[in-house]
């Protein structure tokens, strides 16, 4: 009994130091006051949360509603959501293809999926920018083929950010889906056809419901890091269209408003947690 607990000690310690402690600190900082050049003053204040929704007039302290930050939160959710859907549309057929290869070939295909990720994320993101920018190869090709007159603005917009998110997180969709399809009993598919299901009916009534745990896992693994992503919007969005990650980053760098940054982080964590709980609840309800 004692020994069993000892086995858990390393992971519990890791969780304590690298998760519980930072999360508690973040939450704590979010209810303190900002110091002038970064850091916090040990003086309780809800100002950071007020600032999320309202703008305080510098002269008479009146509050007016300000949707700017909510918009950024909303945009982050939408961007991450779109990236998740795209990853799903690309990842599902890919994972299916890999999982149905002969036994010896699967690991080769899986390795190919991970090859781009041997390169650092920053380098990859910059590479994507170089490809998409006005003087980049895509625009060059389009123009020399005479398909477009001037360069299409592919970089520095939501499209570029979306592309960045998809290319960063695609393997996190493919790998859990692969694992789910790998376990899938293909005689169920034959049973479906035998029982008069068409191709599409088989997909909707048998394949997708059975792959659901994999779909959920992949979805969360893309959506959660996507919503807080920093590099893609920073580099591919050119700092013009902010996502939550950039806003948080700014609070700890230029603006030096640690409590506000901490409050934003806390909101992000809460949104994520609520989403997770909802998904888990639904899954549990459908199990029963």
């Amino acid at each position, binding site marked *: 009994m004692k020994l069993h607990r000892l086995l858990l000690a390393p992971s519990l310690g890791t969780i304590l130091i690298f998760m519980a402690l930072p999360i508690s600190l973040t939450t704590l900082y979010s209810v303190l006051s900002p110091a002038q050049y970064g850091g916090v003053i040990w003086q309780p204040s809800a100002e950071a949360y007020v600032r999320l929704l309202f703008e305080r007039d510098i002269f008479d302290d009146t509050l007016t509603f300000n949707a700017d930050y909510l918009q950024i939160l909303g945009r982050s959710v939408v961007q991450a959501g779109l990236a998740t859907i795209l990853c799903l549309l690309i990842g599902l057929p890919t994972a299916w293809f890999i999982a149905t290869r002969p036994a010896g070939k699967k690991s080769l295909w899986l390795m190919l999926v991970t090859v781009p990720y041997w390169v650092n994320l920053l380098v990859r993101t910059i590479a994507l920018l170089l490809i998409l920018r006005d003087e980049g190869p895509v625009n060059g090709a389009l123009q020399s083929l005479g398909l477009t007159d001037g360069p299409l603005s592919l970089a520095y917009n939501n499209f570029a950010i979306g592309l960045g998110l998809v290319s960063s997180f695609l393997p996190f969709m493919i790998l859990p889906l692969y694992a789910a399809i790998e376990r899938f*009993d293909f005689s169920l598919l*034959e049973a*479906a056809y*035998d*029982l008069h*299901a068409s191709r599409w009916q088989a997909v909707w009534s048998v394949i997708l419901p*059975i792959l659901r745990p994999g779909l959920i896992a992949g979805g969360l693994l893309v959506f959660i890091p996507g919503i807080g992503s920093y590099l893609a919007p920073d580099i591919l969005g050119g700092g013009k269209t902010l996502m939550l990650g950039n806003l948080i980053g700014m609070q700890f760098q230029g603006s030096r408003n640690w409590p506000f940054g901490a409050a934003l982080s806390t909101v992000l964590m809460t949104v994520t947690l609520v989403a997770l709980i909802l998904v888990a609840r639904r899954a549990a309800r459908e199990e029963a």
Partner: protein
Amino acid sequence: MQHASEACQLIGLGRSYGRGASAHRALDGIDLSIRANEFFTLLGPSGCGKTTLLRLIAGFDQPTSGQISIFGEDVAGLPPEDRPVNTVFQHYALFPHLTVAQNVGFALRMLGSPQSEIAASVARMVALVGLEGMEHRRPDQLSGGQKQRVALARALAPGPKILLLDEPLSALDAKLRQRMRSELKALQRETGITFVFVTHDQDEALAMSDRIAVMQGGRVQQLGRPDEIYEAPANRFVADFIGGANLIPARIGSQGAEAEGLGVIPATGEPGAAVTLVIRPERLAILPATQKAKDDLGPLTVVERIYMGNELSFRLEGAAVPLHVTLPRGGLRGALDFSPGDRVALRPEAGAIRVLAS
């Protein structure tokens, strides 16, 4: 040429895996005519092509040669969902995410039947297989036998003209298997659906079938009623596979077949031809060598006495191959028991010895 009474006709059906010299013929020229309302069994050892044949009929796989017609219609190119055939899979293949009721109603839902009709059909099917009260369970909450019933109900729900069953009883324990045998047989009689039943268990095949096709190496070795297959095996393979038999090499001599250590058995044939004598172990009486009459076989020596509860079996040596004799336990009257070392003779029942060319 097609008769209305023919549920499924297979003509020169072949299925090969691989190409060229390494090609493996899983099915090699199968000609079969399965009659409507028949309980038809494909019986054969593992790897003889039973599942391959079922998959061709169901449409999961395409033949490399030959033709399949179902109720007179050539089904080449017809996908499984369009064939009037349903399958009970060897490992059931129940949909794990659906309840018993949803599994049973699956086919009608796919066919777009109205809700009320689906509900009525599910209720009827669930009652037919005796699963009332379990409609809302999921497959992982069922025992093996219950899963088997769900698979049966699910396959029967869309009203197939032919039901294919791939070793449906092999995953059940002996006792349940016995009971399901009678239930399946009764179900087939009630519904009047043509059953094509696959098994490698000869008892199962003999007990349930109207007709049996014994398969080996991708070919049909013999087709016939259970009693025909058992009493008159067409070749050594069938004789040995069904019920076990003593296969004794012999040579045709002037008075009959001469078998080493046994004597002469009445038989006609080309003098000098090698033949195989087929004798079922239970159609031999065993007696002390001192009582040996002229037409009895032997003498032989008992080398093993095997007690099996309802029967007693002896292994005898002295002939070209070891012989087996089985006595029903009730038929043993004290004096008839023997122990290893005893010298005995054998008295075959009239007509018990079949002579096959070898």
